[in-house]
């Protein structure tokens, strides 16, 4: 098998992992090849619009597990391959020198045992760091079930570690990934959380959930994310729209992946992490799924119209963040600007507020943008949905939240 054939097989097996970020690391190294950029750098964009910043490959696609949704499961009859550590190092170094990539994302199927697989991963990355003096970004998958000693060794070599939780409930996991146990994944997470510092997993840890392979609702997923962020200080939870790669009676027969649903989850994820929202604000037992027609924030605002309109010149930072069309940057700018003068509607555009969304929910100097009699739910809802349907095309560009 040529190196190119191997690369194709092992990149194909790795591509369903959503994470590709190369941000969050501040390591400094004096010599060798490479550096890290705190903001992360995207080097290319694949045909599906997702950013390519890391060389995302499996060490091997051989696996002793038989997870129903996974391309590399034991019972699938596909071509199998394994990279030697030298091969991985050569490809990484050559791509990195030419500025194709920001670093390496190494994952692997499980061969023999979790510990054995982990040892191979460590051997590879050690070689890359010490023999080839590579100082670029490395994201590595931790293998559930491996010993803490190995986890410690790996964590000191990489920028980011991750272990995928895959499904939001233990039932879902039991159904589709009978060999995987949730507590083995969370064990990794708590170990990383407790030991994280500038030289151990400096860019933090992340995880991924598959969306749409089981019957779980958005509420289940968001509750899981919220508790993961809270308990383990995760940097990111990634959501991956389920794409049928295997036929199995336990799996839904989807024709297209639920991309819009995935997009709504990412939007809600941002609301949790940066906007001070809680899952219970956005969803409840009666409405366990997001409105496909409208983003979660606008949807929330419409259900809580009694809290609006907010006065731009008086509202607190977190109140401003609740307004659709106002983000972190524009909220900060509003706060800073209004110390010097009163803000008018004309100023808001320069500040960076998305006026066509925000105007329904705010007043400037106690003035509504049109006659305030129009401030009622049906008027605003119709206009917002109309606005969205015009740019329906751009809705599909959901991966803008990835970078």
């Amino acid at each position: 098998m040529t190196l190119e054939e191997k690369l194709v097989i092992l990149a194909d097996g790795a591509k369903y992992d959503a994470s590709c970020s190369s941000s969050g690391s501040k390591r400094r190294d004096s010599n060798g090849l490479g550096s890290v950029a705190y903001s992360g750098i995207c080097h290319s964009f694949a045909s599906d619009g997702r950013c390519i910043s890391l060389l995302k490959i499996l060490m091997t696609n051989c696996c002793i597990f038989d997870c129903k949704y996974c391309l590399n499961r034991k019972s699938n009859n596909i071509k199998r391959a394994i990279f030697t550590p030298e091969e991985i190092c050569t490809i990484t170094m050559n791509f990195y020198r030419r500025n194709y990539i920001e670093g390496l994302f190494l994952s692997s199927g499980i061969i023999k045992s979790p510990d054995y697989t982990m040892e191979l991963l460590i051997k590879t990355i050690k070689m890359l760091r010490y023999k080839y003096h590579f100082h670029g970004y490395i994201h590595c998958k931790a293998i559930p079930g491996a010993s803490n000693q190995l986890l410690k060794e790996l964590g000191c070599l990489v920028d980011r570690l991750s272990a995928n939780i895959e499904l939001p409930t233990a039932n879902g996991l039991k159904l589709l990934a009978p060999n995987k146990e949730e507590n083995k994944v969370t064990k990794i997470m708590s170990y990383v959380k407790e030991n994280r510092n500038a030289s151990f997993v400096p860019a933090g840890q992340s995880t991924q959930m598959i969306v749409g392979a089981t019957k779980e609702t958005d509420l289940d997923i968001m509750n899981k994310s919220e508790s993961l962020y809270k308990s383990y200080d995760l940097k990111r939870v990634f959501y991956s729209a389920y794409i049928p790669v295997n036929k199995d009676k336990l799996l839904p027969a989807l024709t297209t992946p639920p991309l819009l649903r995935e997009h709504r989850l990412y939007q809600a994820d941002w609301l949790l992490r940066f906007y001070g929202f809680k899952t219970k604000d956005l969803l409840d037992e009666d409405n366990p799924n997001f409105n496909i027609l409208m983003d979660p924030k606008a949807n929330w605002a419409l259900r809580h119209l009694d809290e609006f309109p907010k006065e731009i010149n008086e509202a607190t930072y977190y109140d401003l963040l609740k307004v659709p069309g106002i983000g972190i940057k524009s909220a900060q700018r509003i706060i800073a600007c209004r110390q010097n003068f009163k803000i008018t509607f004309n100023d808001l555009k320069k500040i960076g507020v998305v006026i066509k969304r925000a105007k329904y929910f705010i007043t400037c100097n106690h003035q509504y943008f049109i006659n305030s009699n129009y401030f009622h739910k049906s008027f605003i809802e119709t206009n917002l949905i109309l606005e969205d349907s015009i740019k329906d095309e751009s809705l599909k560009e959901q991966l803008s939240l990835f970078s």
Partner: protein
Amino acid sequence: MKNIYLYDDSFSSLLNLINKLLELKIIPLDIKTKKDFTPTLLDEPITLELNKSFNIQSINVSKKIIKTVYYVYLSTDPKKELIIYYFLLNALKYQDKIFYMRTLKCVNSTLKLAKRISNECHKLKGFLRFKEMNNHVLYAEASPTNNVLELLSNHFAKRLKNEIWIIKDVGRNMYSIYYKPKYYIVSGQNINIQKFNISCDEENIEKLWLSFFKTIGIEARKNSRCQMNFMPKKYWPYIIEMERVYEKSNNG
């Protein structure tokens, strides 16, 4: 008659001139480089006697303001000199508070332009593609809208510090040549690098990358529109994985 003040293309000469204008309380109608100035009947070019020992630090503003102004200087906006003049005029008065005064026209333009430059630089940090020459020198070409060669060089001097590399700004015919520990920016008129050949291994590595690039996209999620939004077409001719797509789309 319209007075036009001239400076000789360098950043410090521009600041020196603006500093002088502020000192003399002159409000310029236009500022241009000597190179860009074409005489007309209505324009009166003026070259002021400038302070020879001028030091940028002598302007009483923070480093952050100077950095912002420097980014604007790198842009191609025809009015950039005047924008810098008015921005500095206000910055002297308001200091760092100025970053929150976007409602002033000059501040808004300055911050927008500075953002545009840092965006383009950030994009190219990712999109630049080096090829290895037969003498192990890495060579890359780009044609950025703004003059980001120096900013890019700073980045790659850290990242590829043990390599020898050359980045060519095709549009401006400028080269940045790095030889540890420094890079030198020179005009294309002064050097000749045609003699190098691409290393024999290069084609194999490129082939590997192209296969990886093709494999990593998920067919069921195909979205060329989104791909193009993030990776604008103007960069395609210099990105090896897009080069072929670009040529195809241009030939019909």
